[in-house]
């Protein structure tokens, strides 16, 4: 029931994840952060099997930090995404596969902004906008209609709000709050959370 959204703009990537942590029919936590910082300008959003998500995300994050310590420079977004894919694919046919869907958002001086979509089977694609979870069935068509290449931050945030509104209107599971961040040449910036609208 988790939802991850990513939108690539002119020189940034806007990402949002819902904040619900649930088991069976119970919402255990309403302010869960599903984003992991892989490096100064690389962010990974995860959803899927609980436990696997955090374990895999921390494993990748620490290995990427180790690479920077060993070699003196960090991995580019596409290198980090492919490194992650290789690990996930290797684990896929082992005794302990990780069931994790993710979005990797990053910014690089040479590559510019990039958004990568990876499913739990380790298929990797670089796309301008992406959504994981049931939310994708409601929002991808909204993005097909209103997304433009090279959007400004304001336009991207407006599109994100349109997507979250659609989820809250038509998806029967309550996902009121979304954590929103932007990855750009200045690093990772927190934007205000999308909060539930008060009952009128």
């Amino acid at each position, binding site marked *: 029931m988790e939802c991850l959204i990513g939108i690539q703009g002119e020189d940034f990537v806007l990402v949002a994840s819902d904040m619900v942590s649930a088991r069976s029919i119970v919402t255990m936590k309403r302010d869960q952060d599903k984003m992991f910082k892989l490096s100064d300008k690389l962010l990974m959003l995860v959803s899927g099997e609980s436990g696997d998500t955090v374990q895999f995300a921390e494993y990748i994050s620490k290995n990427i930090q180790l690479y920077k310590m060993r070699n003196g420079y960090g991995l580019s977004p596409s290198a980090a995404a492919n490194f992650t894919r290789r690990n996930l*694919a290797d684990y896929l046919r082992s005794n302990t596969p990780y069931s994790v869907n993710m979005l990797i958002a990053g910014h690089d001086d040479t590559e510019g902004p990039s958004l990568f979509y990876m499913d739990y*089977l*380790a*298929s*990797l*694609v670089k*796309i301008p906008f992406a959504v994981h979870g049931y939310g*994708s069935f409601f929002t*991808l068509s909204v993005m097909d209609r209103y997304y433009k290449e090279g959007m400004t931050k304001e336009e991207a945030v407006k599109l994100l709000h349109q997507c979250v509104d659609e989820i809250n209107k038509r998806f029967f599971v309550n996902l009121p709050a979304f954590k929103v961040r932007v990855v750009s040449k200045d690093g990772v910036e927190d934007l205000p959370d999308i909060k539930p609208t008060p009952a009128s």
Partner: protein
Amino acid sequence: MSIMSYNGSAIIAMTGKNCVAVASDLRFGIQAQTVAMDFQKIFEMGPRLYIGLPGLATDVQTVSQRLKFRVNLYELRENRRIKPKTLMSVVSNLLYERRFGPYFVEPVIAGLEPGTDKPFIASLDLIGCPMETEDFVVSGTCSEQMYGMCESLWEPDLSPEDLFETISQALLNAVDRDAVSGWGAVVHIIEKDKVTTKTLRARMD
């Protein structure tokens, strides 16, 4: 839910007069949902040698990477480019190694023999059984549709321009009768002095 039709794909390779062509669709989808329209399924293994990999998307990426690794080592050891028939055997070996837990891809190879520039096409099943033919090979979720199109449109000794038209029409009309393939198409025409790559204007549905 069939593993081979989880992502959906379509690849054709055809021979012409001193040329070969290989074409694929561009859809990356997860069952009924389309995620990307620029997913690469044909990979270059040599200057005039290409392999098309339809099937489960994660294995398309894994097999192309592992195969490129093996071909690179082969070329470093042998100090020459790999021949198409040898590549077919390398792919066959790679796939059969996983006989009881296979990669879910059914590759298609197209290329020109180095030296003679004789056209070569072949296909393999997911456990590496190779099949070399003279006319065309197809692989993917709409293979029956592609067989029908190729059987009726293909004739021997097509020029590169005619081969492009033939393979394009065969692919386009086959994927239009399959829900999980299509959303764009790319064709590579391989001749002895150049490779031309064209993206087709296809139905985006």
